């Protein structure tokens, strides 16, 4: 029976040329939407991660702070659960960076040379696990700074409060983007599912008389619905292949632009390095969508 059902499903897919073409086109668009949601979600995540990585809190030490004191502070910060990383910038590195930033500003360079010594202290660049945690880290540093004789006594300045507004805004953007992204994905996903389901329902509607005849002749429910499900699976599989074939050159063309625009995210690199995931996600969605839509669409015409 399985062989016959499969054969009739394939024959039905081929013989119902225009209907199959319409179903494949609609499903291809839906799978494109799905692929863009996948890639878009990854791009958003990467972009937000890039932005998050750029945000940090810097602790500036006094020029007389010893290496030991700075190391103690670094260890204490690394032990905090909110802290992802703590990078040490020495006085010499700070000076070199300063010179590089102001190399075209002759006045500043002259003033620096006139000083004769390095006016800059060492610093620690602290990255939190989440942007919302910077306030907690800053409060800890402020408390440390207030303790006389403690490791925080050599802290000159913490730059959190100057950047607080930007950090808060970024935190909001990240949270809103994630929620908005999820909402858009859900709406587009449901809309796409409904469109595909209705398209397949229309395709099966045109076969309702045939289904009626099959009922009268004594065909079992699975014998009636089986070929339609096979056709539905074929709609999904063919659409999936089309989407993957088009995505390859499209992402290759878009790759350099995406990297320029978004920073660290190259859409072509993502597509190629995650090809297995994309393949299974897109083909799997197409096949499952086609099968389920056909199953549900035939059901109303089956007589019990």
């Amino acid at each position, binding site marked *: 029976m399985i062989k*016959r059902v499969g054969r009739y499903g394939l*024959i*039905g897919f081929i*013989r*119902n040329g225009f209907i199959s073409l319409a179903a494949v086109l609609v499903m291809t668009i839906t799978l494109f939407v799905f692929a863009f949601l996948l890639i878009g979600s990854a791009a958003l995540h990467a972009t937000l991660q890039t932005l998050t990585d750029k945000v940090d809190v810097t602790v500036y030490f006094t020029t007389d702070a010893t290496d030991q004191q700075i190391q103690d502070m670094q260890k204490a910060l690394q032990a905090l659960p909110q802290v992802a990383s703590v990078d040490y910038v020495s006085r010499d590195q700070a000076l070199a960076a300063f010179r590089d930033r102001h190399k075209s500003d002759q006045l500043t360079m002259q003033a620096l040379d006139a000083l004769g010594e390095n006016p800059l202290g060492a610093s620690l660049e602290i990255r939190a696990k989440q942007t919302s945690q910077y306030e907690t880290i800053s409060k800890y540093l402020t408390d440390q700074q207030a303790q006389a004789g403690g490791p925080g006594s050599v802290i000159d300045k913490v730059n959190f409060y100057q950047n607080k507004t930007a950090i808060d805004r970024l935190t909001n953007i990240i949270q809103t983007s994630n929620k908005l992204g999820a909402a858009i994905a859900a709406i587009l996903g449901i809309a796409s599912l409904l469109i595909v389901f209705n398209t397949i329902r229309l395709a099966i509607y045109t*076969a309702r*008389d*045939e289904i*009626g*005849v*099959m*009922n*009268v*002749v*004594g*065909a*079992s429910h699975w*014998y009636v619905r089986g070929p339609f499900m096979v056709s539905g699976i074929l709609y999904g599989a063919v659409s999936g292949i089309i989407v993957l074939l088009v995505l390859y050159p499209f992402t290759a063309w878009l790759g350099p632009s995406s990297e320029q625009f978004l920073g660290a995210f190259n859409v072509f690199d993502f597509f190629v390095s995650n090809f297995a995931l994309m393949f299974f996600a897109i083909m799997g969605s197409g096949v499952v969508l086609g099968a389920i839509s056909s199953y549900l669409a035939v059901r109303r015409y089956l*007589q*019990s």
Partner: protein
Amino acid sequence: MIYYDKVSKVYLNGAPAAVHDVTLNIEPSEFVSLVGHSGAGKTTLLKMLFAEIQPSAGAIYFGSRDIGTLRNGELLELRRNIGTIFQDFRLLATKNVYENIAFALEVAGRSDEDIQADVPHVLDLVGISEKIWSFPRELSGGEQQRVAIARAIVNQPDVLIADEPTGNLDPINTHDVVEILKKINDLGTTVIMATHNKHVVDEIGRRVVVMENGSIVRDDKQGKYAL
């Protein structure tokens, strides 16, 4: 063989019954013509026999089994044992002639070898062998009805139901179809045919059951068309 026991059918509450309190017994190998005006209840009576619709009251027996008590699998078995022909042929449009007939054998679980042997044989019987690979859209009305008959009889059913089988046919094809039905009946299959074609009924010259407003008003063993 087939017994309608005080069967009624009401489609809409408050509307007149399509079939009202019909009791009818049909013996094996009979040829029964059900005649009456449009809306007399002929098609409703036939549809209840292969359980496309359920009676509102009464019971229909096929052999000793009440059709209303059959489970899904038994119902499918019943339908495979009843051949059906309709006025609009009801062929599967996306299958060719061979596949249309083979379908009836496949749902009965027959092997590919049996199918390859039986399909050409039954097409010979109805006289349409040369169109074996054609699609329904490529056939005339008469040819389509022959294919429908072939599909209906390929499983050698006990009963053949024909609902206005000549309704869409010209006189020559009508005569050919009637001759085929008579031949099938002569081979032992019970035939129940609903029609309002006077010439067909008179040509057959066998049992005539007349329906009017959902009831049987006359039942003649060798009747003529008379309303």
